[in-house]
């Protein structure tokens, strides 16, 4: 336990409920390091989460925290940001939240480009309900609802978000904990909607059914399959098969939603607005 944990976590709520070796604890640690680097006051941070293992993160962090309904964290966060743009708003979602039940909110948040940083804990499984496959579970993996292996194809969340018009998309893993902190910082500083997908591991409900004996084995898999953006272009296509790129994948300027609406208010109040 470092001083940083004591500063940003609700110490009386620890130990957390996550299983031994779970990636969620690593990501939370990387996140509070990012807040420290950003120098944000705890009072000005709003953390919003959905439902599932990842959703529990808001209970442990000493910010303004909102643990919402399954898949809906983004829309609650959107209301918060619109109503109080001074707040630094972070959203925490699992792959069930972001890619399944709340997929519509994810793509529309990308389109809208509101200044929120969304962090997706992608562990490729529904952990809390006991290991059902999710829209990001790879093909031919085992899950409690896929006892013979999955036949469903999986989503690539990064490409989904880029396709939906996101202005900042990055990906990393729970193994690359330092890089995660850097990406959280970059995402927060980006003016607009920033998505950071964290490839993480669920040792109990994914690992055990899919030939990973230990949490460390899963982290090693992440290390071996992640290719940094700088290298990705130099790696031959056939070698990228089954691997994924980590780092900043898109970063572009796009009008930010709250600023645009504030501009509209100004125009309307001056009586300059054009009406049909």
């Amino acid at each position, binding site marked *: *336990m*470092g001083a940083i*944990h004591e500063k940003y*976590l609700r110490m009386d709520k*620890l*130990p*957390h409920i*996550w*299983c*031994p*070796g*779970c*990636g*969620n*604890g*690593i990501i939370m*640690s*990387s996140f509070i390091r990012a807040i420290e680097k950003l120098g944000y006051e705890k009072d000005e941070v709003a953390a919003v989460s959905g439902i599932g293992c990842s959703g529990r993160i808001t209970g442990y962090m000493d910010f303004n925290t909102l643990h919402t309904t399954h898949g809906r964290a983004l829309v609650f966060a959107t209301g918060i940001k619109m109503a109080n743009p001074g707040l630094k708003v972070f959203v925490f979602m699992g792959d069930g939240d972001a890619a399944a039940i709340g997929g519509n909110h994810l793509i529309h948040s990308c389109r809208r480009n509101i200044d929120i940083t969304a962090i997706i804990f992608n562990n490729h499984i529904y952990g809390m309900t006991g290991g059902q496959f999710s829209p990001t579970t790879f093909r031919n993996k085992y899950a409690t609802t896929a006892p013979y292996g999955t036949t469903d194809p999986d989503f690539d969340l990064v490409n989904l978000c880029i396709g939906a018009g996101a202005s900042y998309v990055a990906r990393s893993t729970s*193994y690359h*904990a*330092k890089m995660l902190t850097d990406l959280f910082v970059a995402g927060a500083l980006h003016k607009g909607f920033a998505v950071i997908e964290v490839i993480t591991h669920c*040792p109990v409900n994914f690992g055990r059914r899919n030939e990973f004996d*230990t*949490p*460390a084995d899963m*982290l*090693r898999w992440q290390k071996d399959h992640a290719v940094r953006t700088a290298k990705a272009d130099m790696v031959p296509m056939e070698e990228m098969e089954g691997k994924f790129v980590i780092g900043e994948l898109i970063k572009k300027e796009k009008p930010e939603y709250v600023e645009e609406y504030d501009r509209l208010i100004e125009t309307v109040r001056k009586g300059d607005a054009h009406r049909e």
Partner: protein
Amino acid sequence: MAKKTFMVEVNRKTCKACGICIAFCPVSVFTTDHDDKAVVDKPERCTGCRQCELLCPDYCIRVEENSNG
């Protein structure tokens, strides 16, 4: 200049015995006890890379540089 040395501590109470620190320590500072929890075995080997601290999901590890260098 004397070589930097580090103090490594594991909080046994909060350790969930996941084995991540043991697996990723490049210089094998840790071993396990009868409950498979991490124990600091060879602190003198520690190079201060803090990989264990970064990857511990339960914030049980503290690495501090010794000031008596």
